[in-house]
């Protein structure tokens, strides 16, 4: 075979291999773009033009937190959600990107939305698709100053409930840290505030203690998932467990909860010093931040691990609980 023909064949082979790689990379890059509204994803490079004609390149919006809101002008609550966020954070390094079919209406109602807010009336569907936002709902998203996904919520809930807390955490780095609640003490059994519940939890050096602090309970939420894990570990005889409820429940609620959820370990309502301490924290932070705290301790009460909202460790913590399968396994 002449050398030149042989080279052409090699070239063709290389091209075929490269085409496979191109197809693979195409899928990976497009997937990356379509998953931008999910955890650990980065907002891809997008160029947009707002309704005033100003070109915005997402890639150039570094060093600023991005607040993206798909607003539905038909609903007052949606506008209010946005305007509260805007009024609270307008002086911070945050860029507001608002997607709405009706920018005139919004600007007419809120002339204060100055050049810090870019309103887009085109590319709404494109952006919704990229961020994975359902077009029938109003969503808003937070991206950190490196365009990395941080948080999203539907806006039918009040702004104060979750978004305010997440913004405070992202921008001001202010949030409840569990160390403040437990202080220097590392042993649950030595904490006077927890005496009531700890007396109900048997002391067994071969078992661990799982103690949950909850303000409310919803079966399909984090609390439900955690309860199932706690029940599993309690049932396996790996751990002793206990739960404390704050504020929203009455004694009869607690009894109903125990019956309905088939809970075989102690569940009580917080009282006295513990309750007043809790209320003191709620005044400083939001109830959301203190909603669920789960403490893992050794049999004699020494704290081993704590899960709470601010630690951003739910996935790790849940994996850790899931891996606890038998009595023989050493804790941690």
């Amino acid at each position, binding site marked *: 075979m002449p050398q*030149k023909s042989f*080279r*052409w064949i*090699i*070239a063709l082979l*290389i*091209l075929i291999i*490269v085409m496979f*790689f*191109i*197809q693979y*990379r*195409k899928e*990976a*890059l*497009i997937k*990356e773009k379509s998953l931008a509204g999910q955890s650990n994803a*980065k*907002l*891809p*490079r*997008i*160029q947009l033009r707002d309704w005033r004609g100003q070109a915005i*390149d997402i*890639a*150039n919006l*570094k060093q600023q937190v991005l607040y993206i809101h798909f607003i539905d002008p038909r609903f007052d609550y949606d506008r209010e959600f946005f305007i509260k966020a805007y009024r609270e954070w307008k002086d911070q390094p945050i860029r507001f990107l608002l997607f709405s079919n009706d920018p005139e209406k919004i600007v007419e109602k809120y002339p204060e939305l100055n050049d810090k807010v870019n309103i887009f009336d085109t590319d709404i569907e494109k952006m919704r698709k990229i961020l994975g936002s359902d077009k029938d709902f109003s969503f808003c998203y937070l991206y950190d100053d490196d*365009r990395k996904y941080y948080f999203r919520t539907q806006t039918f809930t009040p702004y104060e409930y979750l978004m305010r807390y997440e913004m405070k955490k992202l921008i001001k780095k202010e949030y409840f840290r569990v160390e403040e609640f437990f202080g220097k003490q590392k042993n649950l059994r030595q904490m006077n505030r927890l005496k009531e519940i700890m007396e109900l939890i048997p002391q067994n050096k071969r078992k661990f203690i799982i103690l949950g602090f909850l303000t409310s309970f919803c079966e399909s939420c984090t609390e439900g998932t955690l309860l199932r894990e706690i029940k599993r570990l309690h049932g396996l005889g790996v751990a002793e467990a206990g739960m404390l409820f704050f504020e929203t429940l009455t004694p009869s609620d607690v009894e109903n909860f125990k019956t309905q959820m088939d809970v075989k370990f102690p569940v009580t309502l917080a009282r006295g010093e513990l309750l007043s301490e809790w209320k003191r924290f709620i005044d400083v932070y939001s109830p959301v931040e203190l909603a669920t705290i789960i403490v893992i301790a050794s049999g004699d009460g020494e704290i081993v691990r704590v899960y709470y909202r601010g630690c951003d460790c739910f996935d790790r913590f849940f994996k850790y609980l899931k891996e606890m399968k038998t009595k023989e396994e050493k804790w941690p």
Partner: protein
Amino acid sequence: MNDLKKIFTSKRISLFVRLVVGITFIYASIDKIAVPQYFQQIVQEYKIVGGFFSWLLSLVLPWIELTLGIFLLIGLWPRFTAAAIALILLMFIIALTIVAIRGQEIDCGCFSLKSSDLNKENPISLIIRDLAMLIAIVFVFVHEVFRMKKPSG
């Protein structure tokens, strides 16, 4: 002088340089061919060409890179290929110099277009990298010239 000639006529060095530059060019073209619209955005970030030209460049340039990369790898029309690659590298160097003079920092987008891999880089370091490749490809070109001049038999 003879030592220099020895280096320039060394088949092994030339083959090694061809492999390195060829694979680099093929690799660099993959993401750009896969999603040209991402590459177009990076081209626009350079603020040298815009609109239609940035679109044209983002469509054509990656295929040229791929073709030249393959040609260089397998040694097809090596003088022409080396000269074309040198020209492209020169074009990159000029673009990066303009960016450097403006004091801009850019996402190079030279290899990966994945958002997480894109970081603003100092254009000077990119110019140095391209200059090194340019020197390497000039070497291949000179080697091929020497090879053609070499009396047969």
